[in-house]
């Protein structure tokens, strides 16, 4: 027995490793792939801007409609996207402190007016420096990108790279479709694109020399110094200011999934865990019903197939089993909806949804029968889908396991003793052949999380599957990751649990 326990302990120990690898892979994929929340937001803004411009004349450049750099940095910090991936992952996990910020309230500021007076003065100085800088930037046609000043590429700059510059001009003329290629080309020269102008950073000579460019550099430095001194003034109180003039308390704290903080959903603007838990009832409902339906159909069918092995009944139902294996569950749902959904054939079931819209009202009015009928109608199609999904494998598993037991010595002995056939089959053989099926009970936790997103999409059930699917489409990172975390944990423990149950109910099984 002890060997088995060490086996299970070893497997338990493997859970964290598996968990970390999986979540890291998905976290990394999410971070590497473009189209994150900020891009989503920018796309929305761009679409809105294009709509305002009168149906999108195609003149939108992309740069002009997006967020400006300050706002983008703000958002990046908000979504924790400014950290490198491994660090951000550790913060998400909750084993590395994360910087959290909360706005400074006015009440708090009233407590110490002198201090805030001083802060405002420092802020004012920063603003002033910024204004000066912006003015001279505007006057000279310069651009500020982050902390570097960019100047338009002149003919003398082009001379050494005339070939590339000509190619860049061509790419620019093609239009938006070649932007990516153009940016790559400019990147090799150390240039960048602003609108339709090519920009380059200042050279060291220009910075150290005299003249307007050096002056600009100095102004930039003054501005940065003003900003630093403001932060220096604020930092003893764990407060910082952003470049728009808002003050935040900040603190470093462990706040990740280990602490139960799954982050806020972008789309629901609610704690991701709360959103997921709100879907549990639907998942449990369909999970249980699907489970029960499968057992009620497959076990009797498997038994009768095994008893009449190679008989007419076995052959006929085999066709059903094969068809069940050949049809994915969601396709079966689609088929049923076409046939029964009231389109061209019969009108027996609604087209989708968990319940009708007025369900709660009916319940309050005491029309319980109507409620039950409505619920049953809405349940039939998805239930059938789940049934089809596991029908074939479950039936065959039952049949084979029973057949195997029929061949065992103890069954022959039982027959030899003269026991009646029914007793041998249903008491001796069936008990043993139910073992592999009962072991599946270990996955009962999975009921919380049941819900194939295909079936839920087809039947429009607002359950866990649809939530996961929509979160992927909307790139709602916290929900994607939270569903992943819970799903993986439930599955991993479920696997071990069913093996454990198997080992407990079948003493012949030995795990090593």
């Amino acid at each position, binding site marked *: 027995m002890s060997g088995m326990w060490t086996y299970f302990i070893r497997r338990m120990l*493997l859970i964290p*490793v*598996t968990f970390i*690898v*999986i979540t890291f*892979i*998905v976290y990394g*994929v*999410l971070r590497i*792939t*473009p*189209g994150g929340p900020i891009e989503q937001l920018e796309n929305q803004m761009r679409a809105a801007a294009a709509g305002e411009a009168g149906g999108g004349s195609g003149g939108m450049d992309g740069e002009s409609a997006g967020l400006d750099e300050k706002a983008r940095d703000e958002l990046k910090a908000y979504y924790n996207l400014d950290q490198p991936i491994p660090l951000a992952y550790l913060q998400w996990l909750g084993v590395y402190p994360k910087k959290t910020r909360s706005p400074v309230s006015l009440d708090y500021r009233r407590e110490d007016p002198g201090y805030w007076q001083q802060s405002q003065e420092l802020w004012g100085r920063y603003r002033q420096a910024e204004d000066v800088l912006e003015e001279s930037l505007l006057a000279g046609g310069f651009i500020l990108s982050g902390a570097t000043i960019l100047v338009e590429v002149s003919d003398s700059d082009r001379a050494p790279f005339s070939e590339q510059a000509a190619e860049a001009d061509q790419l620019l003329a093609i239009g938006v479709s070649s932007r990516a290629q153009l940016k790559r080309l400019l990147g090799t020269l150390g240039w960048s694109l602003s609108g339709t102008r090519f920009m380059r950073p200042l050279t060291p000579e220009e910075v150290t020399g005299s003249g307007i460019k050096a002056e600009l550099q100095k102004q930039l430095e003054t501005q940065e110094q003003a900003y630093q001194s403001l932060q220096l003034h604020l930092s003893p109180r764990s407060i910082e200011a952003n470049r728009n003039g808002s003050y935040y308390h900040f603190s470093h704290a462990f706040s990740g999934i280990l602490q139960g903080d799954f982050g806020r959903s972008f789309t629901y603007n609610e704690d991701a865990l709360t959103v997921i838990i709100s879907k549990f009832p639907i998942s449990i409902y369909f999970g249980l019903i699907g489970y029960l339906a499968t057992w009620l159909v497959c076990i009797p069918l498997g038994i009768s197939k095994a*008893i009449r*092995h190679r008989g007419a009944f076995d052959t006929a139902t*085999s066709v059903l089993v*094969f*068809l069940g*294996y*050949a*049809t*994915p569950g*969601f*396709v079966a749902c*689609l*088929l049923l*909806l*076409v046939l029964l*959904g*009231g*389109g*061209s*054939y019969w009108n027996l079931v609604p*087209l989708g949804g968990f319940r009708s819209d007025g369900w709660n009202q009916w319940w309050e009015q005491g029309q319980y029968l109507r409620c039950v009928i409505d619920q049953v109608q809405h349940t039939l199609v998805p239930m059938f889908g789940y049934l089809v999904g596991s029908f074939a494998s479950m039936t065959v598993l039952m049949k*084979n396991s029973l*057949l*195997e037991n*029929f*061949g065992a010595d103890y069954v*022959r002995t039982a*027959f030899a003793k003269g026991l009646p*056939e029914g007793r041998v*089959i249903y008491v001796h053989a069936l008990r043993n052949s139910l073992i592999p099926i009962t072991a599946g009970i270990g996955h009962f936790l999975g009921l919380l999380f049941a819900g194939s*997103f*295909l079936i839920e*999409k*087809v039947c429009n059930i607002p359950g866990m599957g649809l939530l*996961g*699917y929509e979160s*992927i*489409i909307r*790139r709602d990172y916290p929900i*994607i990751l939270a569903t*992943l975390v819970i*799903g*993986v944990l439930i*599955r*991993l423990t479920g696997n071990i649990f069913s093996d454990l149950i198997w080992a407990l109910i079948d003493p012949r099984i030995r795990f090593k």
Partner: protein
Amino acid sequence: MTFLLTLLVLVAGVLLTQKGIPWLFTKALLLFGIRLRTSPLAKKRLRRFRSIRRGYISFVIITSCFTTSLFLEVLVNDRPVMIRYGDKTAYPAVRDLFNTWIFFRDGPFPTYDRSGDFGIPGDGPLDYKEFGKIVVDPEKAFGPIAQGRKDDIETLEEEIRDTQQEIDELIEDGEEPEDWLIEDLQAAKVELEKLRSQIDELGAIKEVFASGDASIVWPLYRHGPYKNRLDLPGTAPHGPSLPLPGITSEYCSGTLLGKDDQMLGGRSTYQVGADEGEQFQVGQKLFVLEGDRQQGVIDVLGILLVRELHPDGRHGIAEVLSQGEGKSFPDQALLASRFLDTWEAPLGTSDSGIDVVPLLLYGFRVSVGFALMVMGVGYIVGILAGAIMGYYGGWTDILLQRFIEIWGSVPFLFLIMIIASIVDPSFWMLVIFLVVLRSWMAITYQIRGEFYREKARDYVQAAIGTGVSDFKVMIRHILPNSMIPVISRAPFSFVNYISALVSLDFLGFGLPPTDPSWGRLLNQGFQFILIYPHLVLLPVIALAVTLFLVVLIGEAVREAFDPKVFSRLR
């Protein structure tokens, strides 16, 4: 005729698959000096497999259909197999075929022909349908053009005569005719010359067509999976025109009797009346047609849904289901439940107007090809990994096992969806995703077990003892003896990969949107679930039949290669 040809093609496909390819295969192996020897055991298993009729017949059907589908471009396509004009010949469909074989549609062969080369003036791509029409009836095609040119010439000649007369009169009057008048005359004469030469040219072209020097050979079915059916009246999707029991609506016709005052569900209603001897049914869809009974249908104005019926079944009230933009329903307009000729679009069109027949057939090829690729590549990787684990054992085994355990827990559909929501995956990318994320692991455990067992056998030890290299022992000695689980699992994993592709396509994370696929057709059917059941039913039938046959093969293979002898009760 077409039916006979189709039958011929199918017979040829069966012969090629069952006789031709095995023969070619053994010959090719002989060229490399490999003589295929079937061990008596394998022969016995093959015999057993053949004796299971339903499995063997399914095997013949599926393999033959797949090989035939490799030639789909010359069988079902919107371009002709061959066109000939004078001494110029082109093979558009054959070029498509080679393009597909080599580069998956973006091959090196040109995808169009210059229309000037084939008798139709101009530099643009040749319109094959137009060309075909001219070949069939040059008189009808050229008549109107020639007549038009002749009319042009007559008016021009008249004009010239008038201008000449005017000039003559002016000269007679002793006045100098204006310059522009003379210029006009000159221009008109040049134009006349041009028109005359055009008529000659047209005559020459017509001569070529009329003398049978131009010809066109169409594929069996003249619509492809990439082009929409702009030739059909009305808007896509179209229902099937073939009377399929249960899918196509019963044909009945009638006339629109006028607008009704009633509103149903916020929609206006019309009174409808069925023709003599016809009956409507409640819930029936009726197309409001422009055109008349003699000339045929010109356009579809909208769709009505019969809501209430008079007891005689001929008169009723129908609500407007959809109405063409800017179109009104005239009184006495034709009504019909179907408006296409029986063979015009036998299985209807998809929501972008692409014919469903080529979509289903090309979809079959894509699905089966995809599943074969994923399975093949996955098995190669999986067998390699399993072989290494089983053969070397020890730490290699333990580490790889843990890796597979962890990797197997990655929710792969989830990951593919995330990746596919950003980059549109191509066929090969999807294959690689599926192999890397899932398919290679399925087989490793069995192969590992087989290798463990076989390695302990004497013949392997003997081979190792005589100094045969590890790799050779694995490939030459152990592998042939551990193929049973691979073969008996193959059909079932095949089913899974087709299902995976259909699911991904259904969700919109699969093949690129221009590729024909069953999953996308299902998705379109899902959008039109109440109105166009054929978009769900047809792909479901195709999918279920294909997978059912594959499962039958799998069952037979399992029984032939890996028989379990169960004791019978009593």
